[in-house]
């Protein structure tokens, strides 16, 4: 193991993967319980369109994707709170439009399909040092937001109307959560790819929620499931030459299956 970890690219892959994995799980618990589990899916499709646009214009894909995803997240929040669209309808609209725009741009401008494939399926073993720092910064930011607004986030997730009646700025908090999810999706594309990043926002959270006996436990167990999935996925991918992003998601799915089985056995 020590020999394995002496590889610089593997260290970077693990560091970025663990930071992004922790953030996905933390945000995922709030999103899943708010019945917003498909938010990551919608935002990832918008990221696909942004990456296709950036590749066509030959500019930095991550920078363009960040701008577009954050703008889309704010638009999504506006549609849901001010225009009265139901949450999943707004996500469905953005998701389909994002995917269609991505395919349209990729086809029309004949972008480099290899480069696009790297974003679609992730390229965790080619993580750059700056991407590790970006992931660390995001993890710190999300950690601080969750710590400082823990009660308000919990109240918003449990009962948004009562939270608003107690004076919490629920719209502002909801938009913040959506924007953080957008940034996470963009930075997570290098780790697990556009197609699978939303899985890391849903599956570890769903695994933790099966066995948690309190909200704090749910956060802790979801983060643990995510970190174990990332570590096992990256190491297995390296050792057996498996695709890293798919292996990470499949390990997370395994944790979910085990936690579901454990819950059912306790009931029975």
């Amino acid at each position, binding site marked *: 193991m020590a020999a394995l970890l002496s590889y610089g690219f593997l260290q970077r892959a693990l560091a970025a993967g663990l930071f992004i994995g922790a953030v996905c799980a933390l945000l995922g618990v709030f999103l899943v*319980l708010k019945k917003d589990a498909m938010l990551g899916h919608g935002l990832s499709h918008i990221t696909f369109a942004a990456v296709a646009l950036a590749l066509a214009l030959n500019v930095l894909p991550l920078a363009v994707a960040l701008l577009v995803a954050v703008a889309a997240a704010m638009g999504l929040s506006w549609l849901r709170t001010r225009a009265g669209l139901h949450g999943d309808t707004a996500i469905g609209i953005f998701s389909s439009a994002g995917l269609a725009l991505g395919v349209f741009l990729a086809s029309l401008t004949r972008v480099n399909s290899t480069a696009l494939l790297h974003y679609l399926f992730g390229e965790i073993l080619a993580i750059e040092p700056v991407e590790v720092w970006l992931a660390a910064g995001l993890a710190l930011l999300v950690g601080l937001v969750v710590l400082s607004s823990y*009660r308000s986030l*919990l*109240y918003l997730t*449990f*009962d948004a*109307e*009562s*939270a*608003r*009646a*107690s*004076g919490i700025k629920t719209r502002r908090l909801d938009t913040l959560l959506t924007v953080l999810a957008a940034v996470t999706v963009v930075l997570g594309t290098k780790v697990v790819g556009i197609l699978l990043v939303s899985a890391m926002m849903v599956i570890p959270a769903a695994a933790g*929620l099966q066995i*948690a*006996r*309190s*909200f*704090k*436990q*749910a956060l802790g167990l979801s983060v643990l499931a995510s970190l174990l999935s990332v570590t096992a996925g990256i190491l297995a991918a390296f050792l057996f030459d498996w695709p890293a992003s798919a292996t990470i998601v499949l390990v997370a799915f395994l944790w979910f299956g085990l936690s579901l089985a454990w819950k059912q056995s306790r009931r029975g």
Partner: protein
Amino acid sequence: MPKSKPSSLVSLQGVSFAYGRQLVLDSVSLEIQPGDFLAMLGPNGSGKTTLLKIILHLLEADQGRVLIQGCPVDAFRDWGQIGYVPQKAGQVDPYFPASVAETVSMAVRRPANGRRRRGAFERQEVDRALRLVGLEGMTHRLIGRLSGGQQQRVFIARALVNRPSLLLLDEPTTGVDAETQEHFYDMLAGFNRQEGITIVLVTHDIGVVDKHVSRVACLNQRLTYHGSHKEFCRSEAFREMISGGRHLVSHRH
């Protein structure tokens, strides 16, 4: 902050509200005084819940003024002074992973003076609120696994955790059996008498008027009665309610 009529805890002055073209509240004026235990009665769709939501600033009145402790509701900031119990008993997601203590503590607010409360003090306040509703032994139970009546007690504890001066309850006994309802009303009457908490209870249950409340407001788009419970029992509004000869307004809220 502009103040007016400081003797009223809540002052509604000519409040009107419509969902689209459907008028729900028509020029309602109502004063809620400190120490009141007010039952807000009315048929389905009469605007009771809408009025509660306007007091809580969850909805904005189309016309009229709403003052809380003399302050316009849109400028009011001390929401810890107001406890709200929604109509949620039995509707909690059974798999939501929040313990009873976490459900109560999520409402703990920083006081208006801005000082941060310490963790130990918060735990103490959560324990106190749970003791008030008789759930002190259930701190670690999951909220979704409790009965409807127990969940409602947890929501009341959550509403009481900031030591509010006003408690607003929206049909809190819906889906709760008769015996539990009786205990529930006794408990509210205790909060009103012993803790001095002003209570506004939105209910269909006309029986509650006889034993527990001090004031009654009858709503059916307009305020058709507001006065003491003794006068209410002799009023036309009471006879109309008993005989069922009332105009029902149909709308969604």
